């Protein structure tokens, strides 16, 4: 079918971009893992006295030795300390220090591999004091790792978990040699956060000023602590530092709230794009053809279940290609829902043209039948549709702002469907016919448009788009027999708000509806947001009964 072909063509474009990005990330991750795993291959030689001290010495000596070891510029230090922390450092025969891992032992001083693990080995006990010291040292060593990904991860962890003044020299040292701007910024923030507690008020002042560049909730907490009052006394005695801290706090809060707003706008856009997909099909069947299709929600559900079936087929017959099942699910859900829609139109709806209220009731009946059919075949419980691996995770834009991939993909997908549909309606012969029949059915028939066939095709196009909406929805939420019921009221509201017969109106209405309800949600919660939006629409169509974008003209009622 031509319609199917049109929307099949589009998706690969952004899938490819997505793959490219993902493979870059994977490459970086693999590099980082590789370095960690390759510890055994590092040219290994550690100072024997320090290693002995750590393994067999008294507590104070152990700590001193760890500190000495940590400042050595030796690649073997990090794996040794990590092994110590993991309880992998063992003593054989009372004096030989070994690292035993996965049934394989190496000498901790020379790095030489042993042919077998000796029998009489004792684990080096790491007490809490030593553990803290080792952890700090590991963190600092990672700061100077040659691998950017390791450094970034280490710096992030330190920043988020908070650092104490003991780390200050390490941080300063790392800062001096760091070239990467992102890591450098984080290091500066860590340094400033530590220095907030400095006894010197000039240092505190500088630190408080530096923190203004932060976009992290941690900084907000740190600054709030500084500004807090304990009885009559401020935590910070110096008024200048307090003023600077207040200024920085304002800057950080502004940045944080910008992040929150962007996140809300984004989730509004994403809700809007789902609504848009759900409403686009309605915009054709209701808006253009004047058919109230109460089974529209169930066509969405059919699309979601088609995706589910495709997923299962891939899992059973082509597990290697499982990550790509969505590529097949998109056309399948379009065709399945489109065919169901075509069957509906041929068997029921065509007899009810011009009787909208009867159409409403009949299609409601169909929706009940479809729901019960799905319940009979797949059972009443929700079914599991998995995200492919490449759709999990997200892009982190700010410390408090992460855009999930599945939402981004859905937004792009919606945009593509919209574009294809616009081309179809405005540039193809079928689109011309649909517009002609919409404007004047009798006249279109007179000039030779096969109106009955156009009705069928337009209706199945609308249904097919509902199927696509179902395919998209299956990636964000539960798939169950009631799926469609949740969207039917919303999508009718979108069409009504946008104006009947107006695709552009539907687009604005869906995105507006999504964003506005997300914003109301921040203050009043999801239920009241929905009620408020519905109330608003009821009031809105008082003022403009024809929707936001009414067709201009003098069309008599009925």
């Amino acid at each position: 079918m031509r319609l199917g072909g049109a929307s099949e063509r589009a998706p690969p474009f952004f899938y490819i971009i997505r793959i490219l990005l993902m493979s870059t990330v994977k490459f970086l991750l693999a590099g980082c893992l590789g370095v960690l795993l390759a510890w055994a291959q590092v040219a290994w030689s550690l100072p024997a006295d320090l290693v002995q001290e750590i393994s067999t010495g008294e507590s104070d000596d152990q700590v001193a030795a760890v500190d000495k070891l940590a400042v050595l510029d030796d690649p073997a230090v990090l794996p040794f300390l990590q092994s110590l922390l993991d309880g992998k450092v063992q003593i054989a025969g009372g004096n030989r220090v070994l690292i035993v891992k996965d049934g394989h032992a190496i000498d901790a001083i020379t790095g030489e591999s042993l042919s077998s693990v000796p029998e009489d080995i004792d684990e080096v006990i790491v007490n809490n004091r030593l553990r803290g010291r080792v952890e700090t040292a590991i963190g600092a060593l990672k700061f100077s790792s040659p691998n950017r990904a390791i450094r970034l991860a280490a710096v992030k962890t330190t920043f988020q978990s908070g650092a104490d003044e003991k780390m200050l020299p390490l941080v300063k040292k790392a800062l001096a040699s760091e070239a990467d701007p992102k890591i450098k910024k984080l290091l500066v923030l860590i340094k400033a956060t530590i220095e907030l507690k400095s006894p010197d008020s000039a240092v505190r002042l500088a630190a408080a000023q530096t923190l203004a560049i932060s976009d992290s909730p941690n900084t907000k907490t740190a600054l709030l602590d500084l500004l807090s009052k304990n009885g009559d006394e401020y935590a910070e005695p110096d008024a200048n530092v307090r003023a600077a801290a207040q200024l920085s706090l304002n800057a950080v809060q502004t940045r944080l709230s910008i992040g929150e707003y962007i996140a809300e706008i984004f989730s509004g856009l994403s809700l809007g794009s789902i609504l848009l997909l759900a409403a686009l099909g309605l915009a054709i069947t209701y808006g253009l053809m004047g058919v109230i299709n109460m089974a529209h929600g169930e066509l969405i559900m059919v699309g979601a279940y088609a995706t589910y079936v495709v997923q299962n087929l891939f899992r059973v017959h082509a597990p290697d290609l499982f990550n790509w099942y969505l590529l097949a699910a998109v056309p399948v859900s379009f065709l399945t829902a489109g065919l169901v829609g075509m069957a509906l139109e041929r068997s029921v709806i065509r007899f009810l043209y011009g009787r909208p209220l009867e159409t409403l009731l009949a299609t409601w009946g169909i929706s009940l039948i479809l729901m019960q059919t799905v319940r009979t075949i797949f059972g009443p419980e929700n079914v599991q549709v998995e995200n492919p691996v490449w759709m999990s995770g997200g892009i982190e834009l700010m410390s408090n702002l992460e855009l999930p991939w599945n939402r981004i993909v859905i937004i792009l997908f919606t945009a593509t469907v919209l574009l294809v549909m616009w081309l179809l309606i405005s540039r193809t012969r079928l689109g011309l016919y649909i517009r002609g029949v919409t404007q004047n059915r009798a006249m279109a028939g007179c000039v030779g448009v096969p109106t009955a066939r156009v009705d069928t095709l337009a209706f199945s196009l609308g249904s097919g788009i509902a199927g696509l909406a179902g395919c998209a929805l299956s990636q964000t939420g539960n798939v169950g027999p009631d799926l469609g019921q949740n969207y039917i009221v919303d999508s009718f509201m979108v069409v009504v708000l946008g104006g009947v017969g107006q695709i552009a109106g539907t687009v604005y209405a869906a995105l507006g509806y999504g964003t506005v309800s997300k914003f109301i949600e921040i203050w009043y919660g999801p239920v009241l947001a929905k009620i408020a939006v519905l109330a608003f629409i009821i009031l809105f169509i008082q003022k403009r009964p024809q929707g936001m974008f009414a067709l201009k003209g003098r069309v008599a009622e009925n």
Partner: protein
Amino acid sequence: MSAARLYGTRGWNVIAAALFVICVLFPLSNLALPETSILHVSEYTVTLIGKIMCYAIVALAMDLIWGYTGILSLGHGLFFALGGYAMGMYLMRSIGHEGVYQSNLPDFMVFLDWKEYPWYWSFTDHFWYAALLVVMVPGLLAFVFGFFAFRSRIKGVYFAIITQALTYASMLLFFRNNTGFGGNNGFTDFKRILGYTITTPQTRMALFVISGITLIAMLLFARWIITSKFGRVLTAIRDAESRVMFCGYNTIHYKLFIWTVSAVMCGIAGALYVPQVGIINPSEMSPANSIETAIWVAVGGRGTLIGALAGAGIVNGAKSWFTVAFPNYWLFFLGSLFVLVTLFLPQGAVGLVRKIWGKRS
């Protein structure tokens, strides 16, 4: 108003017979006859028929607004539930200290850690006030909503969708625990009504008889409306609203009046329904229920009052039989009913009977 205008002699006889059955035969066979007797009517049947009579009142209301005036409302489930909730508030307060927590407040408020009744619960311990709410809340809501809707000439499918949205929004509102109507669970565990224990056979029978009498009164009232000049205008609005307006009628007044009356009828039905089934929760407001009301009327026959009654009886009777005998097939049946009736039986069962009758004579 003369009796002859409403019904002919035969019609009045049928009504008298119905009254006799409801007020005398049912109480006798349920209360006086032993359970072993063939003529004994079980508790289950009494509750079922009582329920269906409440539904029949809703069907009448629906028929007035849809069958006679041509306005399809998908909000009648809301008015029904509002009436039910108003009665439910009174019933909840009559529980007194006998709740699980032995508190002055209903259990769900104790659960929310509320210390006193919210303002909208004040006076609901008086029956007269609850009865007033039963009429006023659906009536006022319908009046205000209808005023705005009809004023901006919202009609047809638009009106149906907007009323559905209203119902849906209210359902969400009542599902919230903090709205103060028991959230998800609604009201249940009623103990007594007007001092009588609610579960005794006598109270049940009394509620049954009251529902029956109300139903017949509503039927006569609806009949009175549609045989009046006012009713003729309503039918004219259904058939050609523009022409009625050109003739100088302000159709908004007519539509607004019948819309409000219809909502109040639903509220009363809901108030009778709740003590009989013993529960009211927000799922009564789900859009599906309102649409089902439309199918009762469509099955029986739009634009005939007797059709509305028959439709409510047929569909709900079928429902109670199906959901016991073939629970998995009920929705198939109901769905096909929607499709087949709209396609093949635009006049409903009454139209079918008339056709057969007409052919024979």
